[in-house]
């Protein structure tokens, strides 16, 4: 769909060269993107906030639902800050807030709006049109839902280690925007 890639990386972000970025993608400061992470902005721009962690094999896709394809104005997928996309997750949500965790191999459909502090458990599959309330936890093979008192803790330690380790072993894309 999009012929030209327009990648904007704000200074402070660590984006590995092998991370596949398609379309109009903006990556905020402090975000770490592992090799083989796949961000596909096929329907419109994706803006990833600060201090997000996108692990290997995770897929973030901006895909407009079929019934909204005809709309004129191109929507922007805005992903907040401090989100964790674990290995092998497949996220197509139309809006993502802050402090969310998408665990391994989960799938979030393009009609789902994720607010803040949500955890989508490993292997959970949500496709129905819905807005996940804050601090929602989805877990188990039956995708049971519960509400936590507070959101998940931040991954500062892991992020610090990665920001030291990754540049030693991988080629890092040069930031092209100043914060």
């Amino acid at each position, binding site marked *: 769909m999009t012929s030209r890639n327009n990648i904007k990386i704000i200074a402070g972000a660590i984006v590995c060269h092998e991370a596949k970025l398609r379309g109009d993608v903006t990556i905020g400061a402090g975000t770490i993107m592992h090799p083989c992470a796949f961000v596909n902005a096929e329907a419109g721009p994706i803006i990833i906030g600060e201090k997000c962690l996108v692990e290997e094999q995770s897929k973030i896709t901006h895909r407009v639902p079929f019934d909204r394809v005809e709309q004129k104005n191109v929507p922007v997928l805005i992903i907040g800050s401090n989100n964790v996309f674990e290995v092998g997750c497949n996220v197509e949500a139309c809006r993502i807030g802050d402090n969310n965790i998408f665990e391994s191999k989960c799938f979030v459909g393009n009609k789902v709006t994720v607010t803040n502090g949500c*955890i989508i458990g490993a292997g959970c599959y949500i496709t129905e049109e819905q807005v996940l*309330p804050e601090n929602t936890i989805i*877990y*188990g093979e039956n995708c*049971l*839902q519960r*509400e*936590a008192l507070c959101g998940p803790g931040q991954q500062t330690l892991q992020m610090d280690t990665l920001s030291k380790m990754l540049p030693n072993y991988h080629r890092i894309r040069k930031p092209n925007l100043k914060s």
Partner: protein
Amino acid sequence: MAYIIEQEVVKYVCTCGLLKPISKLYFCRYCLEVRCGFCVCHEVDSHFCEKCLENMPSAEARLKKNRCGNCLICPSCLLHLSVRAATVGPKNPEDPKATPRKVVYLHCLMCRWSSRDVGIPDQIAATGGWPERENVYNVRLSEIIEWYKSVVLLEKQQKLEKDKKKQRKYMSFTDKTGLTAEMIRKRIGLTEPPNPLLKTKAKPLEGAIAKEDVEELPDNIFTQPIKLNEITTVQQRLLQPEWQPVTVDKLFPIHKHLSVKQSLRCRSCEHNVSKPEFNPNSVRFKIQLFAYYHIPEIRIVTVEPLRAGQPAELLLKFINPTQHQTVVTILDLSSMPELIQDDKCSADTSTDDELKPIEKEPLSLSLTQSASLLHTTLSRQPSFTIKPRQTKQQVGADIEIPAANFVLPPRDDAAEFDDSGENYNFNDDPRLVKWRKSNKAVIKLQITPSTDLNLGDQVVVGFVMQHIYTNTIATSVEKDKEPQKCQHKIRVFLSLGNLLGSSE
């Protein structure tokens, strides 16, 4: 191993008549019969907690209501709770010297439930000491238990009185083995000291009283939208029958249920067919007479498209799991009549035992005093036998029974890694045996699905596999004796797939 466990394509008929895949069967070496989980005796060996792997004697387990004292599970998703450490600010923040305190709380890694969610105070030490909740009905429950204990005692006493009137002539089997103080007292005619529990007459219970007027439902129950995140699921409620919390803020950690190690015992000869090691850390067995180690395994290699009335080629792979060479013969199902024994079987087991060695057809004369006979005569009388039942498997195809039999060499673990060309000197019928490697052989069978079948029906073929079983028990007892060989027959049913339409 998933292919054996999950797909029940090749099924063997157990002695009791049930169809089971080979992974679920046992083979009793003493009666030389196949047994399954249904027709063996299950016994609890030990109780243990599968999280902390702590062993517990059964009396203690009963006292603790079969739960582990240390391990807790998540009330929300039933997974183990783990202890998580956290640091909180010092008790008096004004004091500049105070160091931050270390506390622990419980945390579920699956659903992220934590003990802080329901307001359980954090603990200072990581080992146990979590607040226990008292059941509000404890007093009532213990009253009921007391009452029933006294009722049981009373009934026992009455039965004893009755027994005294009609003196028995013979010693019963239990008298002989369990010569307790009670028995001696009875023998010499002393009266039993009255049970202390009997003296203190339990106060009669007040029965539960049914109430006529029930509290009205609040008005808003019909108008207020239900918040699914706040109410518990049925499973969560039934997990704590004493409290049955309705809302999630009343979920409290639950003590983990204990697991048991169980041993399985053949009902007819009372030998163990499976006995685990006592130590909960160990996953090994002391005795494991699984059929998988004794009976040739059959796997379907390929089958031609199945069309009614048209012959199709079926390739089967036979694998010999034993350390002894065996000869496999394929026989018609009719060669092994259903072992439906009438009522006389359960009534008169001794004749049944004597019949068995004849059924087993010892191969040579020197083995007439076969080990199985020896053992069956020595073994105790079976406590309880299960009557074999009719196998209701419909066979939907004819099978052309090959005239020849074939040899399966013993299993050799090293052969798996030996790529050098192997030459076999078995006089195989080339029309029967298609392929061979170490202890495996692929044979070809002709099958013809019956014309009575409808399109899409499952085609099942059945045959009797007769193989030579080398019994090693006799050799282990008497060194000079040759291993006893006997013909073992087992019925096998194969589900080959669905019937296709005609080829035109």
